[in-house]
């Protein structure tokens, strides 16, 4: 069990309200990702759920019970920190055993659980080492091990992969996703990386300035962003946003079209422009196009390696059915 409900939760630091009244339900077993630019309040929100920060007003319920005033340890949650936050003076074994020792569990049971967790996380050979003797990825696994031995009702992850290099990050991403499938426990995950959010989440919560902009599955957010902020934040490369006459011709203040929804054609394109920087990835090519008369830069994704050079004229054909239309307030027009 691990259903978390936030009801009219607010948080202020002094006179500054960082989280205006907010409601959110995280269902049992769900992998929920909080995503948003830095300073959007996503980590603060996670810390409020953890109990590491006190909420200013409102209620937090965990499994239907009021947890608003409970200390972190009594909430039945485990947390994995960005810096791993391992105890440097303890061996891996003692690190993982620490929450069980605090729970006054008997030695034999602790040993069994620690070894079980070590096996799941491939840490068996490292149990007697100190955290300082481990690589970044191994440390992260120890931090996860320390979280899973408690068998918490939910896991909280605060940007756990941002200290790892790119290759390791992809690997750990898969491991965490698999762990979620295996344990079938609620996970709340904070990241500023929308790729992490898209690949891991059952449900994404997009935050900006402490306000929830949209909640939905990755594909819901991709297909039907509720406003311009979400439209620009979800998807890589970013959605092209066009205003002015072109938008007006579609009865909108702003229209959005994703780079993958604009086709490069030989001639007779609806739009045309000059090729600026091109990024050749092999499988795809991203063109940054200028002088279209639509926006400063238009990003277009072409499949495979398309041979166009800097300064060439490019013809483009947008798939009009994929247009996202927004009104003057930036809200989606259905």
């Amino acid at each position, binding site marked *: 069990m691990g259903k978390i409900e936030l009801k009219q939760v607010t948080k202020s630091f002094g006179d500054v309200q960082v989280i205006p009244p907010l409601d959110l339900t995280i269902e049992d077993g769900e992998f929920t990702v909080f995503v948003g630019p830095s300073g959007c309040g996503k980590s603060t929100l996670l810390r409020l759920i953890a109990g590491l920060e006190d909420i200013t007003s409102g209620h937090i319920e965990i499994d239907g019970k009021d947890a608003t005033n409970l200390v972190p*340890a009594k909430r039945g949650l485990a947390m994995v920190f960005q*810096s791993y*936050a391992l105890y440097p003076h303890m061996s891996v074994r003692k690190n993982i055993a620490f929450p069980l020792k*605090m729970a006054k569990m008997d030695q034999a049971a602790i040993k069994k659980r620690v070894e079980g967790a070590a096996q799941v996380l491939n840490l068996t050979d490292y149990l007697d080492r100190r955290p300082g003797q481990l690589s970044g990825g191994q440390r992260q696994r120890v931090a996860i091990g320390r979280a899973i031995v408690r068998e918490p009702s939910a896991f909280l992850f605060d940007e756990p992969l941002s200290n790892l290099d790119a290759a390791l990050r992809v690997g750990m991403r898969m491991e965490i996703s698999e762990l979620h499938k295996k344990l079938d426990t609620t996970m709340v995950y904070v990241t500023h990386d929308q790729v992490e959010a898209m690949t891991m989440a059952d449900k994404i919560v997009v935050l900006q300035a402490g306000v929830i902009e949209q909640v939905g599955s990755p594909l819901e957010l991709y297909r039907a962003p509720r406003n311009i902020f979400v439209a620009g934040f979800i998807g890589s490369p970013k959605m092209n946003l066009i205003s002015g006459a072109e938008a007006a011709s579609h009865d909108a203040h702003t229209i959005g079209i994703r780079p993958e929804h604009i086709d490069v054609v030989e001639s007779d394109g609806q739009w045309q422009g000059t090729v600026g920087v091109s990024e050749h990835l092999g499988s795809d090519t991203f063109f940054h196009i200028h002088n279209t008369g639509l926006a400063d830069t238009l990003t277009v994704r072409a499949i495979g390696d398309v041979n166009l050079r800097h300064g060439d004229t490019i013809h483009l054909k947008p798939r009009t059915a994929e247009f996202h239309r927004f009104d003057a307030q930036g809200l989606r027009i259905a």
Partner: protein
Amino acid sequence: MARAVTPRRKALFTMIAWAIGLVIFFPILWTILTSFKTEAQAISDPPVFLFFDWTLENYSVVQERSNYMRFLWNSVIIAGGSTLLGVMIAVPAAWSMAFVPSTRTKDILLWMLSTKMLPAVGVLYPIYLIFIELGLLDTRTGLVIVLMLINLPIIVWMLYTYFKEIPGEILEAARMDGATLKEEILYVLTPMAIPGIASTVLLNFILAWNEAFWTLNLTAAKAAPLTAFIASYSSPEGLFYAKLSAASTMAIAPILILGWFSQKQLVRGLTFGAVK
């Protein structure tokens, strides 16, 4: 690129360092040497350096005249007790200042340090009266309290500096793991700050051991530590340099030996956090 140091330069620096070291150490060395001279040799002009008749007479006289062990024991209790009590009070204080600071934390730290700038004699009279009132005059308990209070600002400051180096996330992790505040301080914070705590303890033990103003003014016979033991040999009548030196050597020997064996720890603690 690493800065190149030529062997000649290195030799020069080594010589300068040794010269400074010897200048600082010379008075202590002279005291130790004098303690092995006769009273006549101790005041001879020109002074004799190494070539004199070495004697242990001063030590046996000092030993006969006064009970060294009792002074030593008082010193150990007063220095050890005040340091221990100080650390017990300072650990929670430094914890709160380092991890849950308020807007006034910096002011409090500065105010605490400012009390060290007050000349001790300025508060001698009120403290003396309070001691009489509470019956603490010439008691070890009284001295433990006074020396603890006097060194507390330094202990808090040192511990605060070490605690600041410990990432708050680790303590939060402990809290998530179910540690109570006591367990968090006992199992996580303290072991991580051990080098810092050790050097704080050592430094304050040495400061308390050497403290003379309060120990001389607030004791008479019963609670007198080694500082009083030395002072009792510096009488205005008669010249007993050799005996005074013997007493001094006996008084500083324990702390000198302690300092010698813990110098690595002391240096490590004092530079703790300087290099990550």
